[in-house]
Each structure stands twice: as structure tokens, then as C-alpha cells.
């Protein structure tokens, strides 16, 4: 039986390579891609940002990121049709936990979690360690922020076509990282431009021309729950949050487990301005060490 996710991945790779072949400068860049692209694509952590209230709820609760559906089931959050749940319901992603490959992007909020790239592997195997068929894995990737499809990336397209577009770009985890590597080497003049937010210097073949960094940021969605233990690479939080009695106990435990903890002084008056820079520095250092 064919697997839609694998077929999508094969098609997207083919389209990207074909696109590069039509543009000699891109083909040349792809041929001369350095090891940075490989390292970036293989090791790029996954981020999930949240406000202080959600951070507290995650850390003092089940130590797990939960999908909107799970949060509602457990009575932690009410189903607010104004929030992301509307788009998630339309796209069938309401039982997904959302992460993004790379640093925290808009809105950066105050707190954030970085997960290792290896997190994906445990969602791609069964209970005895066998790799699951792509369509049965408990995680899926997309080469853009799916939350932006309906309102921002494809705003003037019929809903049925938006949903179809979404389904045609769901690709398997962790296999998508090979496509991620090719995207970096073909569409970006440097893989560092993915990290620092400069973005690609060529829009590429995917028919999304609107939008900001949501257009080219790879999204990885986990089914239902994403546990922090064993998956966390680093946590970012401001001084006042870190100082809270429950938080410092938690931070001590994270440090014992080898999780990086980045505590910073926030700029309250400007908001959302610090987390991006901190995470870029952290990921840069992390990727350098993977050499």
C-alpha cells in the first residue's frame, strides 16, 4: 500500500531538484554545498515557545507538552474558537503538539523549550524499536508553518484547496531532514540564513509566496503529547520566572539531567524581543559543537 507521506516527500524532493536544475546558480550552489548544510539539517533542534502561564502549567503538571485536544480533554484549557484551535480543527491537526526546526520565531513569548533532533526518532518506531511505516508514525513534518496556511500563506484560496495543500505537504519524520538539507543547500545562500532569520534568497517551488518566516520554517508535529524528560535540549526563561520556588526546583532537576538552562533578563517594555536572540546564540553554539 502506498504511503501518502513518503509519496509527498519523494515528490517534493523531485520538484526541488527540478527547480534547481532550471536555475544554474542554484544547481551550482547545491553541488558545492558544504558540510554545514548536512550538520544543520541533521542536528537542528526543535523549538516550542510559550507564555509564562503555559510554562508554569507544563512544568508543574505532567512535564509534557500537550495538543489543544488533550488540554481540552483534561480541562486545562477551554476550546477557544478564536485561538489556533479553529485552524487546527480545519486542518486536522488539533491533536498535535507543534514544534519548529530552528530558533524561536514570532511570537517569541517569554519562555521556550528546545528539543533534540533525536526526539523525532522515538515517535517513528514501535514499542519494540522497529521503524513504523511513514503514515503510522506519531510525528509528521511540513516545510512551512501550517498554522499560517488558512489566514496568511494562502489567504485567497478556497478552504478545500487549503486543506488539500496541507495534506500534500505532510512528510515523514525523521526522513524529512534529507529534504530539509536540500532546501538549505539550494534555496539559502548560507544555511546560517535559516538560523538567523534572513531566509532563503530564492522562493523555491512551493506555491506559497506570501507571508514571513512562517513560509520557510519547517514544522514538526507530534501526536497528542511530547514528554519533556529525555527529549529536552534546553530551556529558556526570564529571571523572575526562574526565581519562582517551583521553577528553581525544576531547573535544578533539568541541570542534573544535562539539560541546558538559559536564564535571561527580559526587556519588559519591548516584549517578545529577547528569546529569538538567545536561542540563535544557543543553537549556533550547539551546532558548532556537532562538528
Amino acid at each position, binding site marked *: 500500500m502506498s504511503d501518502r507521506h513518503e509519496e509527498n516527500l519523494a515528490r517534493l524532493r523531485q520538484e526541488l531538484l527540478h527547480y534547481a536544475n532550471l536555475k544554474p546558480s542554484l544547481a551550482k550552489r547545491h553541488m558545492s554545498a558544504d558540510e554545514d548544510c548536512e550538520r544543520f539539517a541533521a542536528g537542528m533542534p526543535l523549538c516550542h*515557545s*510559550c*507564555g*509564562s*502561564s*503555559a510554562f*508554569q502549567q507544563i512544568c508543574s503538571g505532567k512535564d509534557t507538552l500537550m495538543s489543544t485536544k488533550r488540554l481540552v480533554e483534561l480541562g486545562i*484549557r477551554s476550546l*477557544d*474558537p*478564536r*485561538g*489556533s*484551535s479553529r485552524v487546527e480543527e480545519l486542518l486536522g491537526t488539533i491533536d498535535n503538539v507543534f514544534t519548529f526546526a530552528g530558533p524561536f520565531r*514570532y*511570537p*517569541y*513569548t*517569554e519562555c521556550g523549550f528546545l528539543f533534540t533532533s533525536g526526539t523525532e526518532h522515538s515517535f517513528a518506531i514501535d514499542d519494540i524499536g522497529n521503524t513504523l511505516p511513514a503514515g503510522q508514525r506519531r510525528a509528521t513534518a511540513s516545510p512551512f508553518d501550517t498554522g499560517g496556511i488558512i*489566514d496568511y500563506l494562502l489567504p485567497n484560496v478556497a478552504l478545500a484547496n487549503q486543506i488539500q495543500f496541507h495534506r500534500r505537504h505532510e512528510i515523514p519524520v525523521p526522513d524529512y531532514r534529507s529534504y530539509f538539507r536540500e532546501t538549505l543547500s539550494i534555496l539559502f545562500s548560507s544555511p546560517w540564513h535559516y538560523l538567523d532569520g534572513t531566509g532563503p534568497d530564492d522562493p523555491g517551488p512551493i506555491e506559497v509566496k506570501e507571508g*514571513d518566516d512562517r513560509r520557510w520554517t519547517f514544522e514538526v508535529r507530534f501526536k497528542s503529547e511530547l514528554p519533556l524528560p529525555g527529549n529536552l535540549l534546553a530551556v529558556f526563561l*526570564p*529571571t*523572575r*520566572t*526562574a*526565581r*519562582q*520556588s517551583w521553577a*528553581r*526546583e525544576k*531547573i*535544578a532537576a533539568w*541541570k*542534573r539531567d544535562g539539560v541546558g*538552562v538559559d*536564564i*535571561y*533578563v*527580559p526587556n*519588559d*517594555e*519591548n*516584549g*517578545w*524581543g529577547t528569546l529569538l536572540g538567545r536561542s540563535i546564540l544557543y543553537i549556533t553554539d550547539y551546532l558548532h559543537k556537532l562538528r
Partner: protein
Amino acid sequence: MNTWNLKDLEIVGYAESLPDDLLPAVVAPIYRVREDDDTLLMPPFDAHQGDKVKTTHVRRRAELDRLVGNEQATGIDKSIPAAPGQLLWIDESRRPHYQSAEQVRSHFQYLATAYLGLAREALILQRFDHADKLAQKAINADNRSLDAVLVAAVVERMRGNNDVLDVLSDIAKAIDPQIDFQQQLEIYLEGLLQDNRNVPISNLTPDHAPSQSSIASLAEGLDIADFPETLCVTSFVDRCNVAFQRELPALLETEPRKFVAYAGDKRLGIDENEFYLRERLAHAGPIALFYVEPQDQELAAPLW
């Protein structure tokens, strides 16, 4: 990047969803363009001085709803006209205030100082949880407050949580990368002990104040045996001029101000709060304890 005049904007929310524990707080406003109800300006702002705002994050009205639904932002019920030189802050009852930056900074500095003062008093009274909560309010008001971190460190040292002390050292280093946290903690403790000497006991209302019944029980003379020059053995007292058959913490509670302790020739104090703090926090080494009755017979340091 686009630029707007503040006079054309109004505040409809802020870029955080804060739990009660993190209030009061200055927050970043989310603006709505007055003449275009569907256009919002989101932080971070590249310039937010004078009468202009610059941002790359221009969004539709629905974006605020989405962020609020995701607990990434908070809406405010009644929009506030934007004005130059103002800051938005949220009080402990979750009411928004919009005042001159100078006024807000001054108010928050006052709050931080006041909460730290109260936290310090609470520490002296050994009301550690209360002290911790008060100091949290101080760092909410001033996220660079080292003293708020030091109060937490005193509390954690009392609890023997060395792992957590490391975390507090990390927080202090985020505020001041050059800080010698251990040294600062010792200085803070020394100041705390000094303050304790200067606080009239009548002004204190400790959590563990001796009750009338415990004093009455002691007065029956059953618990203290008067054996001068006999050593009292506790976990941290080397010697004592009186032998006691009760544990020292209980005696300190029931016989306030009748003890004096010395580490070498350094007087450590005569009431339970100070002595207890010194022993538990400062690891002062061998301690000699004296029971002085009546209290005014303590004239000078003993020659041991």
C-alpha cells in the same frame, strides 16, 4: 519596516499571559491602528521612543484572538489611547495602568524596595515561605533585583537545597555576570544578622513565638537542670554553661533572650531567630552557648 505615530494607535492587549505569581509587571503593549480596526502592531518594536513605533509585525485583529487563545498574549477590556513616554503595567489585581515611564519606574523601584524590606523582616522571623513570596514580588517589579535572588538563596540554604542554590547562582549571574554569588550571600547574611540585633524583639511576631502555655510549663522547673559548667551536647553546640535535658531549638523557643552564643570571641546573639540563623546558615564552626539568667548578668565575652 513601517512606522506609526502613537497618537494614531490605541492599546488593546499586551504580549504576555502572566500567572498571579508574576505580578505586578511592566508589559509590552499590543497596538491597534485607530483608523483601521483590523490592523494590529505587535512587539518587539524596533523603535519605541518618542512618538513613533516601528515594527515588522503587522497583523490582523484575529491574530490577537489567536494569541490570547494560545495563552501567548492578553487582551484588555477597554482600549487605552497610546501616548509618548508611557509604560503599560499590570497590578496584582490584573488591572492595567498606563502612566509616564518615569512614574512607573519610580513606582516599581518603590515596590521592589518595599517588598525586599518585608522579605528581610520575614527572614529574621524565620517565615521563610512568606519571605520567598515577598521577594518574588520584588523581582517581578525589578527583574534585575539581586536581593530577591539572595532572599531565595537564604531560604534554600535553610532547606539544605544545594542544587537549588546553584540555580540561584545562575539567576544572579544572568543579572550580573561578574557577581561572586557566594560572597554576596555571606554579605547578605551578615547584614541580616546585624539587622536582627537592631530589631526590638517587641516588634517581632515570629511564626514560632513562645506560647504562654509553654512558658508556664517551663516555669514548673521540670525541664532545665541547673548544672553549671556541664557541657550541653547538641548537633552544633560545642559546650554550654548549663546542662539541658531538652533539645536546644525547643529551649530557644521557650526561653527567648536568655541565651548568648559565641563563635570564638564573636557574639552571635541572644534570641532564637539570630542564633538559629547563624547556626543553620553561616556554618560558623564551633559554638559556645551560654544560658544567662537574669539576662543583664551577661557583661562580657567568656574567656574560654
